[in-house]
C-alpha cells in the first residue's frame, strides 16, 4: 500500500512540473467553457430551452477520452525509454504495486482537472431558476470518475507495452476512439440478437455512460463495467511488466 502511494504521489507531483499538464487542463476548460457559454446563448434566445448538466457533461466525457492518452502515455513507456524501469524493478516493490501506483497517480491528476469543472454546474445552478436538477450532476460525476478510472487503467496497460511514449500515445488514442466512437455505430448496425454481438455491445464504452449515468440513473451494471475494465487493465498491465522481466 505504502509503495503504491509513494509511486502515485511522485507521478502526481510530476504532472505539475511539466507544461503538458497545464496545457491539458487549459484546453479542457477552454473547450468546456466555450460549449457552456454557447448553450447559455442558445437558452437566452430560445425561451423553451433550459440547459442542464448535459451541456457540459457530454463534452467533458468526450474531452476526457481525448486527453487521457496524453496523461497516461508517459507512465510506464517513459520509464522504459529512460531505463529507470530497471530501478523500480530492482527496488523492493511488487509489480502490481508499481502498476497500481502509476494508475493512481494518473487517475488523481485527471480527477484534479475534473474537480475544476465543478464550477460549471455551480454557475448553472445560479443562472437557472429555480436551480438545476441535482440527480444528474451526482450520477454524471460518478460516471465521469468511473470513466476516468477505466481510461487511465487502459492507458497504463498500453503504456507498459511500449518503450516509446509517442507510440504509446497513438495506440492509446486509437483504442479509445474505437471504444468510444466506433463501437457505438457497430452495435447499432448489428441489430439486437446474438452472443458475439452482445459482447461487443457490452464493451460499448460510451453507452455505459450515456444510457443511464448521464441521465441521472445509477445502474449497478455500468458501475461494474467500468470497475471491471479498470481491474482487468491493471491486471494485464502487471502481467506485461512481469513479462518484461523475461526479455
Amino acid at each position, binding site marked *: 500500500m*505504502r*509503495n503504491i502511494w*509513494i*509511486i502515485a504521489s*511522485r507521478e502526481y507531483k*510530476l504532472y505539475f*512540473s*511539466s507544461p503538458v499538464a497545464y496545457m491539458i487542463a487549459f484546453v479542457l476548460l477552454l473547450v468546456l467553457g466555450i460549449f457552456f457559454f454557447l448553450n447559455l446563448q442558445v437558452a437566452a434566445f430560445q425561451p423553451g430551452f433550459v440547459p442542464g448538466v448535459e451541456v457540459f457533461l457530454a463534452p467533458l466525457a468526450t474531452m476526457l477520452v481525448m486527453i487521457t492518452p496524453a496523461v497516461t502515455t508517459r507512465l510506464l513507456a517513459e520509464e522504459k525509454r*529512460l*531505463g*529507470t*524501469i*530497471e*530501478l*523500480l*524493478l*530492482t*527496488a*523492493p*516493490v*511488487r509489480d502490481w504495486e508499481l502498476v497500481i501506483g502509476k494508475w493512481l497517480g494518473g487517475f488523481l491528476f485527471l480527477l484534479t482537472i475534473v474537480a475544476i469543472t465543478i464550477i460549471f454546474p455551480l454557475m448553472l445552478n445560479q443562472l437557472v431558476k429555480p436551480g438545476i436538477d441535482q440527480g444528474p450532476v451526482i450520477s454524471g460525476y460518478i460516471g465521469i470518475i468511473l470513466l476516468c478510472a477505466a481510461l487511465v487503467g487502459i492507458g497504463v496497460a498500453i503504456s507498459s507495452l511500449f518503450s516509446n511514449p509517442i507510440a504509446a500515445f497513438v495506440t492509446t488514442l486509437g483504442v479509445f476512439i474505437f471504444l468510444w466512437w466506433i463501437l457505438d455505430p457497430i452495435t447499432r448496425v448489428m441489430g439486437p440478437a446474438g452472443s458475439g454481438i452482445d459482447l461487443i455491445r457490452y464493451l460499448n464504452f460510451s453507452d455505459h455512460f450515456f444510457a443511464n449515468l448521464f441521465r441521472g440513473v445509477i445502474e449497478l451494471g455500468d458501475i461494474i463495467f467500468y470497475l471491471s475494465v479498470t481491474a482487468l487493465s491493471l491486471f494485464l498491465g502487471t502481467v506485461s511488466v512481469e513479462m518484461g*522481466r*523475461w*526479455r
Partner: protein
Amino acid sequence: MIRVEGLTKDYGPHRAIDDLTFNAEEGEILGFLGPNGAGKTTTMRILCGYMPPTLGKAEVSGYDVVDQSLEVRRRVGYMPETVPLYPDMTVFDYLKYMADLRHLKNVEDRVDGVIEKMNLEKRASSFISSLSKGLRQRVGLAQAIIHDPEVLILDEPTIGLDPAQIIEVRNLIRELGREHIVLLSTHILSEAQQVCNRVIIINNGKIVAGDTPERLQARLTGARHVSVQVGGDSDGLEEVLNNIPGITHISTNVDGNIVFETVPGQEPRPEVAKTIVSAGYDLLEMRPVGISLENVFLQLTRDEPSHPESPEDEPIEDEEGVEQEGN
C-alpha cells in the same frame, strides 16, 4: 554473501550465460571481467532480482533471487550500466524517492548523508538533466548505497568518466568494499586489478578463470618471460639459444631484443648467459618481463587457447615473485 550455482540464462534460443558458479563473501570486492556480450550485465540483473534465470540458483544474503526476490532487493544496491535517472527530478528529490521506496527512516538525513558522501552538496537542488556524466554516475552510486545495502552491484561503474573521476570512483569503491560485498563489472583489466580482491573472467557466458588478480596472472602465464639485449647485431642468436634446454618460444621483438619463455620449474638463465657470451655476443641485459593481465585476458577469452605473441616489456620488481602491473 552471494552464492551462485549453475546459473544459466537464455534469451530465446540464445544462451547469454551458461552454468555460472561462484561465491562472494563479506569484505570482498569481486570483479566481473569480460568482453562485450560476455554476460556480465545479465548475471548482475539476475542477482539483483530484475529477471529470473532460466536454470540454476542464486542466493544473496541467504535469500533466493527468485523465491525471495523482495528480500534480495531490500539487501542489494544496484547501479545499472546505463545509470538510468529521472532527468526531470532534482538530485535531492530523486534520492528521496529511491529512499522512500525502500521505506528508510529519517529519509531526509539519509539523503543528505549520501549527498555529502558523494560530494554532491552543491548540486543537490539541480535537475538531473543538467548534470555531467560524472555527476550522474555519482548520483547513481548514491542511489545504490542509500540504504546501506549488504551487497553492492555496480555494472561498469567507471565507464565514460574522465581519468580524474575514474580514480575518484575507484577509491570510493575500495572504501565501500570495506563494509559491503561489492560485485563490479568492467572490461578494463587494470581496473579489476587495482580495485578487486578477486576477479572472475567470463567469456561467451562461461567462467574462464577466477582468482586474485595476482595469482591469476601468475597461474595463467605459468612460464616466465625473459628478455635479452645484446650489443650490436643479434643475428643468429635465436638459433644459438634454441639448443639450450628449458627455454621455449624464442622470438625477436620490435626493439631487436630476444624474448624467450622458461619452462616452469627450470632455471636456464645462467646457461643462457654463458652461451651468449661464449658465442661472441655482448650481453648487455637479461631481465624477466611480465606478461600483462591484458595478454592473459586476451589469451583466455580467445576461443582457442593460444599464446601471446609479444609479451610486454614490463620489469618485474623481484626476481622470484609475481610481477606488478604498471598501468
